[in-house]
């Protein structure tokens, strides 16, 4: 990255490394504050973090399913288990 810079005590690469934990809410409070301080002063990381977060959010919202198996698949599974 051409503009890897230190803002708020973190480099852009440090933020890239922590993005998943950031969007999952898994960073400690102090780590989270550092990331947010960096984002406030780094337009590039704010934009990329926004894109990353949008994809992860859409993934969970659009593709996660609670659909059960089709009825015939369930029946064949029961039959297979009953034979053992």
């Amino acid at each position, binding site marked *: 990255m051409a503009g890897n810079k230190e803002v708020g005590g973190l480099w852009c690469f440090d933020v890239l490394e922590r993005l998943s934990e950031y969007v999952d809410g898994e960073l400690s409070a102090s780590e989270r504050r550092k990331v947010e301080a960096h984002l406030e002063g780094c337009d590039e990381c704010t934009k990329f973090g926004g*894109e990353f977060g949008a994809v*992860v959010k859409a993934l969970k919202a659009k593709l996660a399913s609670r659909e059960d*198996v089709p009825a015939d698949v369930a029946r*064949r599974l029961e039959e297979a288990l009953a034979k053992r």
Partner: protein
Amino acid sequence: MSPLDADGELCRKAAGGDRQAMSALASAYRGPLYRFARRLVQDDALAEDVLQETFLTALRKVGGWRGEGTCRGWLFSIARTEALMAKRRRAGEPDVSAEEQEEELPALGLAAGWGAAMDPEALAAKVEEQALLERALAALGPTEREIIALRDLEGLSGEDTAQALGLSVAAMKSRLHRARLALVAAVKRGGHDGR
């Protein structure tokens, strides 16, 4: 009792030879395990085979289950192994152990647009299209697809995901992050395979 505690209790009962407990586990987990298998093998009939083999293997092995990890993580780890074996049996299929080279994080970031991101709102609008996300996920390598399926689609905890994949939690987190970056890159390519 939480759902996970209840599953653990069912596993313990099944380990003691209780067939009804195994049937109850099959009812509770056939959906999640079938969806997971479909993501891995990308074929409905093969996913059904994986589902059946998963529970038949669970039935054989449950007597030795000692409650390490969770019952859920254990079932997903069996399904993963069965899916890998099914793919190996399918001619010409690369398996997870022989696939993706692990790229350096900066290279993955750059491919996903790190440092060149333009418009988060435009991308957010783009990923409203479910078909694009499906194509992008399908374009990923199997290692990337399986961890996203477990953690982001089936909603397993970090610990259960790590157990299912045979990884430490730290290694699981690192792999998940790489997989998500690869997904962002695939979305930006319009869901096409960039390998």
